[in-house]
């Protein structure tokens, strides 16, 4: 299979707001009103306490690289989007989320401060959050 320009996520009732907010330039996390847990990916019941009283919260969109690895060859991914830096970014709000760091791999280290940007996909209603180094 092949993906170009980027894969389009499956949007579900539980995740629609996350993806449409991204198209508006907002990165959302979930916050449990019962136990206070801030989590990712979005779920309607808190994965810590099963409370249904959970709210959307806008993330600062800033964080640091928790870990990363660079793919230089990858079957099925657009050639001109390689090398691809896969990373976990730890948001200031706490959760570590999988993403791409859209930068030269030599500019990425564990602990690198990054900020969110949003990439268009074929579906104009939604966008995909990625991160770039704050200094770059």
């Amino acid at each position, binding site marked *: *299979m092949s*993906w170009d320009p*980027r*894969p*389009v*996520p*499956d*949007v*579900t009732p*539980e*995740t629609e707001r996350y993806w449409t907010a991204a198209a508006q330039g907002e990165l959302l996390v979930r916050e449990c009103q019962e136990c206070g*847990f*801030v*989590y*990712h*990916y979005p*779920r309607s019941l808190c*994965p*810590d306490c099963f409370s249904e009283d959970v709210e959307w919260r806008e993330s600062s969109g800033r964080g640091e690289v*928790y*870990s*990363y*690895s*660079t*793919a*230089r*060859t*990858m*079957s*099925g*991914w657009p050639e001109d989007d390689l090398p*691809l830096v*896969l*990373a*976990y970014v730890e*948001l200031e709000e*706490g*959760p*570590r*989320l*999988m*993403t*791409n760091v859209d930068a030269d*791999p030599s500019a990425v280290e*564990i602990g690198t401060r990054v900020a969110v940007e949003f990439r268009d996909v074929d579906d104009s209603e939604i966008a*995909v959050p*990625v991160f770039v180094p704050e200094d770059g």
Partner: protein
Amino acid sequence: MAGTEPVYIAGAFEHPTREAPDKSTMQLHAEVAKGALEDATLEKGDVDGYFTAGVPEYDSGLPPLIMADYLGLEPSYADTTDFGGSSYVSHVGHAASAIRDGRCDVALVTLAGRPRSRGQATGSGVRGLRTVQDSFERIYGATNVTMYGMAARRHMHEHGTTSEQLAEIRAAASHHAQYNEQAMYQEPVTVEGVVESRVVADPLHLLDCCVISDGGGALVVVSEDVRSDLGRECVELLGFGESIGHHDAGRIDLAKTAADRSGSRAFDEAGLGPDDVDYASIYDSFTITVLEAIEDLGFCEKGEGGSFVEGGTLRAPDGDLPFNTDGGGLCSNHPANRGGMTKVIEAVRQLRRETNPEVQVDADVALAHGTGGSIGTRHGAATVVLGREDR
């Protein structure tokens, strides 16, 4: 739980093939089932329990039904738990529970697959979106090797582990593989050879990654009543534990695995500890998979796996913890991209003194550990502790 009815592995068979372009996956299942039953000196009609994770290449095939149909089985108990590659280690434990419950007496476990003949880009290919999680992971091009690369990077960051230390694991496996005529790669490699091989997903090199092979394997797990009638030397299941590690809603720890829980459960049941283990089969999808499991199983302190594997620790027959004496998934065989089965088989061979003589260990107690799925997102961990009948 120790002291419950003893359960034994009576048969173990690894398919000799590594590439099977002219066979179906179902045929391979049947061939390994036949091989393991012959090894156990049992008949097909004796089987009353059946365990498999199914046929990975079929998206949805109702595994117990298509397998029983194809193999001509009439089990009174079936289990198709799928943790990925560790499934078959779990199946041994699940079979023991079913036997102790009186649900069956002869449990057959089978695995087969043909990723090599099917040209599957196992480690470095993107895959379609199926689960909720895929839309938060695979859309970023997450592949098996980049996810394990992230784990290796984090382990290096937290504990100072080096690429050379990871390479020690491959070098030890290749030292063993040179004596295995069926191994895909029989040429010994050095630490330098590993770190000089092409970087696939930094910090992992090509030789940090396991092989892609066709094939399979099977096990026969039996009750005390059945064992006592067999002339065949069996291996006793002393302890079993399993667990699941996952993203934990954003708190994922890439430097550790769920082996700490599966391992301690297995050791507790066996009434033994890491110091009692004479031989270990440890799942080796990548070198980092082995390193983290060694720490989490308690063979050394957390973070000290790198120095632990230096100096020939893992090399048979004289190392302190001889591991994967068949060459493991790194050098010999990773059938269906699922290495849990061959881990158990080589542990059984060691305890029965049936492995290659150059790497035969004088082992009374062996451990086999599986890591299924991905430690970069979510994984199953399963551990069995096995012992010789006359230990």
